[in-house]
């Protein structure tokens, strides 16, 4: 995975195993930490451009999903209706 690292310390432009790396980054973003995940993350983000981009893209998608897809208004009478049905079966 270390091919294409250039000597000036810039990020390499190609990732040696995108599938494996991206899945790992997604797990880390999901809070499913594995051994040494902090170090792995730091290493990938500083050394690999595709990993860096993928991580930030995934992070942005998670944020918009969380902010824009959880605001479905619950019908006002639903809770009362549930309570009433529960009283009936008690």
């Amino acid at each position, binding site marked *: 995975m270390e091919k294409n690292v250039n000597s000036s310390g810039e990020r390499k432009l190609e990732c040696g195993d995108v599938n494996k790396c991206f899945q790992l980054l997604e797990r880390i973003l*999901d809070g499913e930490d594995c051994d040494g995940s902090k170090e792995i993350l730091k290493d990938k983000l500083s050394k690999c451009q*595709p990993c860096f981009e993928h991580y930030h893209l995934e992070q*942005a*998608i998670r944020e918009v*999903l969380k902010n824009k*897809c*959880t605001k*479905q208004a619950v019908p006002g009478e639903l809770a009362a209706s549930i309570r009433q049905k529960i009283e009936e079966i008690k």
Partner: protein
Amino acid sequence: MSEVQKKKYSDKEKNNIFDNEFMPHIDSMYNFAFRLTFDEDDAKDLVQDTYLKAYRFINSFEQGTNAKAWLFRILKNSFINEYRKKSKQPSKVDYQEVETYYNSDNVDYNITSDLRVDAVKDMLGDEISNALNSLAVDFRTVIILCDLEGFTYEEMAKILDIPIGTVRSRLHRARNLLKDKLHSYAKDMGYDADED
């Protein structure tokens, strides 16, 4: 859930669990139900049925365990058993085909390299929502559970009755499908990576 249950909770305890551990999740439950059924009345019925089942089988709920995950599991099962048939969404048929296609190794990077963070951040709620809703129900569900509701992989495995490895791979494929959809929206919005 077994029909035969030991009596475990008093009426007072049952009400206490129901009010303090079950009802606070009604917003999340409704959101999940609506994203499964795409219909307000079906979503209401599904949530109501779930809460009635939860009350009826309350003795099989272990106090101190994750009530939200327990409720989501009941809702998901009710949806599969009773609502899926009548809902207007496409059936599960396309799932295998899509899963096989997205299992190929080179798909990920091609999508990612064309979709940019600023395009995603500029998207409207409707676009994000439509992209999510366009996914087949099994893919949509894992994204809802993980990203909208914050369940862990282990909780998702229990809710969905699938192994944790399947949760992981299904989620990865769901994210690729979602990015693919978002990418077409980004192109429509005028974001084109080729122009950089």
